[in-house]
């Protein structure tokens, strides 16, 4: 009922505003696409889709902050104030349930949903779905790979054709006095690591992501949670990731990996384009590039398939947009396999479309494209709950620094803390 009244009110307001807009502007309707910062790829797609639209609409881009949680803050605050200027949004998948529950997103029409969920990797489809409905349009899908220095892996006697385990990596780092590249800074990247470890051990950070805040049950106080904590604490306490671990984000891990003591690193595929660019600019040796290998994310338990992190961007359509239909038409144009393939080769962001990986240009620019696709099929999303921000910030607060993580107490303590925060009994 409430929703209907809301929508009726919104539609009436939209109608009035549309009339006002028509009087003022005679050109084609302008759609504003709020994008996360990239290397200009989304701007290029916006231009080409504007051309393809043949005067039906025009896409303008508007830049969001660099940090994913700050992107969420800006969009959520604007949408809570019913900002009608938001037509399309590049959304980080973990925040999508919150946007749906807040009625910030326009519903995906059934025919659009059918078309945009064909030919999409499993992880990306899961990330765009909430309560069994497609709520956003899958755009690009990210996943972390295990990057390694071939020389170190050979010295450790590891067969990188086969999946490796975290314990093997820890052993190799101890034996050869080299450093592992992981993200231990108190930020979203720490949650990404914790979630991947817990999921790979067969558990879940949140057992019932669709529950109300007070009823959310955490799955950390379990064997999977303790196993994840054990791996993290071993790496932290033994200094296997260097003194920079408590402040290491993705770029810091990459510098460590490129350095003299680099060995293994879990990181997103941007590291490949970034290292290539550094070699081209002459700041790094070509030998380094030749020494880099890649594999699927390490396993926690030997023989049990790992669940690599899933990231990327999905497109949401603003609930208060004046041109929802046109926005969905534009979204379908933006996520076409050709655009995704082009975006991957120019900006290093992997497609969610399966067929885009068969593009010869993709295969040439990213020799690891098939591993990425496999990793995306295996990937596990971060907890899909409307309270993701509380869960993630709570994890970051209790599992930081990694050296202080205690497998016997940290999982239980963090469960207790996050549950209390969700019940409104504790400050975060």
């Amino acid at each position: 009922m409430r929703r209907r009244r809301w929508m009726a009110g919104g539609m009436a307001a939209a109608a009035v505003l549309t009339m006002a807009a028509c009087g003022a502007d005679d050109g084609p309707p302008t759609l504003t696409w709020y994008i996360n910062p990239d290397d200009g790829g989304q701007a290029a797609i916006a231009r080409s889709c504007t051309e393809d639209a043949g005067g039906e609409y025009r896409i303008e881009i508007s830049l969001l902050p660099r940090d994913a949680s700050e992107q969420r803050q800006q969009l959520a605050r604007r949408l809570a104030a019913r900002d009608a200027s938001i037509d399309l949004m590049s959304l980080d998948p973990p925040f999508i349930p919150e946007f749906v529950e807040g009625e910030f997103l326009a519903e995906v029409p059934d025919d659009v949903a059918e078309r945009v969920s064909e030919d999409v990797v499993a992880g990306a489809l899961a990330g765009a779905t909430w309560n069994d409905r497609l709520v956003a349009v899958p755009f690009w899908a990210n996943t972390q790979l295990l990057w390694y220095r071939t020389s170190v892996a050979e010295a450790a006697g590891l067969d990188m054709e086969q999946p490796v385990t975290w314990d093997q990596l820890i052993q190799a780092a101890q034996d050869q006095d080299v450093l592992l590249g992981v993200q231990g800074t108190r930020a979203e990247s720490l949650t990404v690591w914790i979630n991947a470890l817990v999921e790979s051990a067969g558990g879940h950070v949140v057992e019932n992501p669709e529950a109300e805040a007070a009823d959310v049950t955490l799955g950390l106080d379990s064997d999977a949670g303790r196993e994840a904590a054990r791996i993290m604490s071993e790496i932290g306490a033994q200094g296997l990731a260097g003194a920079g671990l408590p402040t290491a984000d993705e770029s810091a891990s990459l510098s460590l990996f490129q350095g003299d003591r680099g060995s293994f690193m879990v990181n997103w595929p941007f590291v490949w384009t970034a290292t290539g660019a550094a070699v081209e600019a002459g700041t790094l040796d070509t030998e380094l590039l030749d020494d880099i290998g890649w594999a699927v994310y390490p396993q926690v338990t030997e023989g049990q398939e790992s669940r690599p992190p899933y990231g990327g961007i999905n497109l949401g359509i603003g609930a208060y947009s004046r041109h929802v239909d046109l926005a969905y038409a534009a979204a379908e144009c933006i996520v076409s396999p050709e655009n995704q393939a082009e975006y991957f080769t120019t900006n290093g962001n992997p497609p969610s479309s399966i067929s885009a990986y068969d593009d010869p240009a993709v295969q040439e620019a990213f020799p690891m494209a098939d591993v990425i696709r496999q990793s995306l099929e295996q990937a596990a999303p971060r907890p899909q709950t409307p309270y993701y921000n509380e869960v993630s910030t709570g994890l970051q607060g209790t599992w930081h620094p990694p050296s202080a993580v205690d497998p016997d107490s940290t999982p239980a303590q963090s469960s207790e803390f996050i549950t209390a925060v969700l019940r409104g009994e504790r400050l975060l």
Partner: protein
Amino acid sequence: MSAQVAPAKGSGASEAAAEEEARKRRNRAQKSDRTRAESRLGWYLAGPAFVVMLAVTAYPIAQAIFDSLFRFRLSAPDERAFIGLTNYVVVLSDVVFWRVLGVTLLITVVAVAVEVVLGFALALVMHRAITQLRGLLRTAILVPYGIITVVSAFAWFYAFDISSGFVNTWFAWVPGVDENLNWFANMGTSLFVIIASEIWKTTPFISLLLLAGLAQVPTELEEAAEVDGATWWQRLNRVVIPNMKAAIMVAVLFRALDAFRIFDNVFIMTGGANNTEVLSLLAYRTSIARLEIGLGSAISVLLFVCVILICFIAIKLFKVDLAGARGEK
């Protein structure tokens, strides 16, 4: 305004006294015309600013107090409910709040104490500098204050950062500093950098206020003390400082209020990691990041109460005289 006099009621006073009273009243009435005009002019001049102040200060404060009585999450506006003082109970009964308050107070006390000493020394240098150098010196000392806090915070962050910073290499000779020292991985070292950056940035502000105070100390007093054989230290301690007490107290009060609301440095350098969270950051994370408007407003209101308390303590207990500092006495 107070010049308006109530009409005298019938009294048994003598005629002469009544005459005298009437004369006084006329006198006062004459004065009151002028004062009234002046005060009216004052209101005309200050009125617009007063209205703007009400709109941008009083209204948000009232709104925050109102919001703090609700359970209100921006992404679930339908579930908004009046819950009285529950938000305050949650905040005040949580150890996090008290820890954060403690860290904020620690930063405030240390930063202000060091700044007063340094700022006083800089003010003396500026005050005594020969005329040709004075302009250059004042500009040089003011440069840090002219830099935006966010920019200075990033500059300090990158200087101390373990992967891109130069501090660990330059200061490797200092015991405890080596290439593996991660300044932003421990509470103590993080707070050191945060406070140092705060001091570097705002000492010029304090030294400017103190310089104004120094300029008010009559030179004759100092000269007289010198003639009487007082040493430099005695002159400073017995003549200069007592004569500029008002300026010092105002500088301390202003800076303390400012330092208590520290945000940028902590936000950029640690984001509150390693127990370096401060009150403003807690309020920000609750209202803006968690979108919990009710709970966040409660924290903001408590922050506001703390600021008022600091003002109250300074003005009532330490008798800070804001008018005295401007030389109005």
